[in-house]
């Protein structure tokens, strides 16, 4: 009972996932280059630093568009799972981020809050949300 339409949908989903993976890798690599390049490759030359950051931004835009396309092609349930996980990650990010900042403001921590810590917390919340959604609707 396999139709041409359905196999097109499956193929499209697979292509979207692969495209998203490529954009993710490209963005991570460009971020690493922009972060470590000045120190290890071009001795803080402004031109190369600006170029590396511009490339990283461009890769970020590509990743956002690939993600949007991927989400748009998912079915209703998959979109619902993604929405719930994203909402959880965003809520946790806002609450944890502000508390983290507050910790530093009232001198409960002595180090400067790092945005990367927040990204890790949000990623974990997102992964938890996806796992919870898949478990609930399996």
């Amino acid at each position, binding site marked *: 009972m*396999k139709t041409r339409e*359905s196999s097109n949908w499956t193929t499209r989903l697979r292509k979207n996932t692969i495209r998203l993976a490529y954009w993710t890798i490209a963005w991570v690599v460009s971020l690493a280059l922009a972060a470590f390049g000045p120190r290890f490759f071009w001795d803080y030359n402004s031109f190369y630093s600006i170029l590396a950051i511009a490339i990283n931004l461009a890769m970020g835009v590509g990743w956002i568009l690939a993600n949007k396309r991927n989400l748009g092609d998912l*079915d*209703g*349930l998959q979109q*619902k799972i993604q929405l719930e996980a994203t909402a959880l990650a965003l809520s946790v990010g806002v609450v944890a981020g502000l508390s983290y900042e507050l910790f530093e403001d009232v001198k409960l921590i002595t180090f400067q809050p790092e945005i990367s810590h927040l990204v890790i917390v949000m990623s974990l919340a997102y992964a938890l949300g996806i796992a919870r959604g898949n478990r609930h*609707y*399996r």
Partner: protein
Amino acid sequence: MKNRLKVLRAERDWTQAQLADALEVSRQTVNAIETGKFDPSLPLVFKMSRLFGLAIEDIFQDEELARDKE
């Protein structure tokens, strides 16, 4: 919202994967609809109606309406 998806699928001897393929959704989605955990969108309901050759009311029933009739 109750539905007869599982019965209709069984009558045609289709697997969840085959039905999912025909509807362009994941197998997980078919399972969630069959078990009543997820209500499908209107376009997907129309697609099911076309696929089974049945009216929407023959596939889905409003639980409150069914209760009122009883």
